[in-house]
């Protein structure tokens, strides 16, 4: 949560048509940024000096869009690299600012994403049980959870579809032959250090309206991934 005092204000300038702003907003949410606003301009021109405006006759889908958020310097540094990549040709501006009064969340959360660490030994296994039809911002929840985990650099996630079951609702899910039913129970499992898992919980709890989150202790014996070499053939699966 933001505190009174020094902070950074980040502004990202985009055009509307490429819908990058939606992906960026999702990313900021997944990373537990304190808040962000998307502004839609009524007219403007871009780096190519093309003028975009909302005329009465033509409806433009290339109006300027600006995403603005205020965060601590540390947090901004954590997300800036990814934002530069996501903004494409858009411009990013960072300004020093001073918070006079921080916004107060209705519920206390201690979201602090941790940088990626090498993980072996004691770790946490988190299983998340939700319905296949559950949605977050009109998108399938299980897919968005995987996206959110990726944005937070969690070590990896796997989604399983149940064939039978009931959950928080005591609704009966039964997988009919030929996939007639589309409301199966889904399980997402993820393993990472306790700090990373606990750091992700506040975001997770905001995204899951109904479901079960189950944590247990595990020992990680091996965690490695294939190095990415573009001109080298992949030799063997790492796990």
């Amino acid at each position, binding site marked *: 949560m933001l505190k009174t005092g020094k902070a950074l204000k980040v502004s990202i300038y985009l055009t509307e048509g490429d819908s990058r702003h939606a992906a960026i907003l999702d990313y900021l949410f997944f990373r537990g940024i304190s808040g962000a606003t998307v502004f839609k301009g009524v007219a403007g021109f871009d780096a190519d000096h093309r003028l975009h405006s909302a005329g009465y006759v033509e409806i433009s889908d290339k109006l300027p869009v600006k995403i603005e958020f205020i965060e601590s310097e540390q947090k901004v540094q954590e997300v800036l690299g990814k934002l530069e990549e996501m903004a494409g040709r858009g411009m990013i501006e960072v300004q020093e600012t001073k918070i006079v009064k921080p916004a107060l969340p209705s519920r206390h959360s201690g979201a602090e994403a941790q940088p990626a660490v090498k993980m072996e030994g004691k770790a946490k296994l988190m299983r998340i049980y939700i319905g296949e039809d559950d949605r977050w911002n009109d998108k399938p929840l299980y897919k968005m959870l995987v996206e959110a985990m990726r944005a937070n650099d969690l070590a990896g996630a796997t989604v399983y579809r*149940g064939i039978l*079951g009931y959950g928080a609702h005591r609704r009966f899910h039964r997988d009919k032959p030929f996939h007639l039913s589309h409301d199966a*129970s889904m399980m997402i499992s993820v393993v990472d250090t306790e700090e990373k898992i606990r750091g992700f919980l506040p975001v997770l709890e905001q995204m*899951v309206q109904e479901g*079960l989150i189950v944590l247990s202790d595990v020992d990680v014996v091996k965690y490695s991934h294939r190095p990415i070499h573009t001109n080298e053939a992949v030799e063997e699966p790492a796990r």
Partner: protein
Amino acid sequence: MREEFAASMLRIHFNGKDKSQGMPLQEAILEASRSQEMMFAIAYRGVEGFGASARIHRQTALSGAKTAPVMMTIIDRPEKINKFMPLLDQTVEGGLIAISSVEVIRLTKDDSAAGNA
């Protein structure tokens, strides 16, 4: 609504063609679990595996998914799980049952939470 508590997780491994009193075992376990008002149950189908008989079970074009291994997970508070064990023992004739301690965060929509805990 948000509840956080220590719980037990049961995992039951058996074969997809196993039955209990003529009923597919996964359905029999699910019925038993519902009759005891266990909080949560889910069954998954594996791709391949072997069990106590050391015979490899996998889905084939002829058998369909029926002979693949099945894993069921049941989660509830430890005392509920302990009370459930005798009935589960009766239902499952051949298979493996594992139990582990877990920490649970349960999220429910506020309107359905009343009187449903």
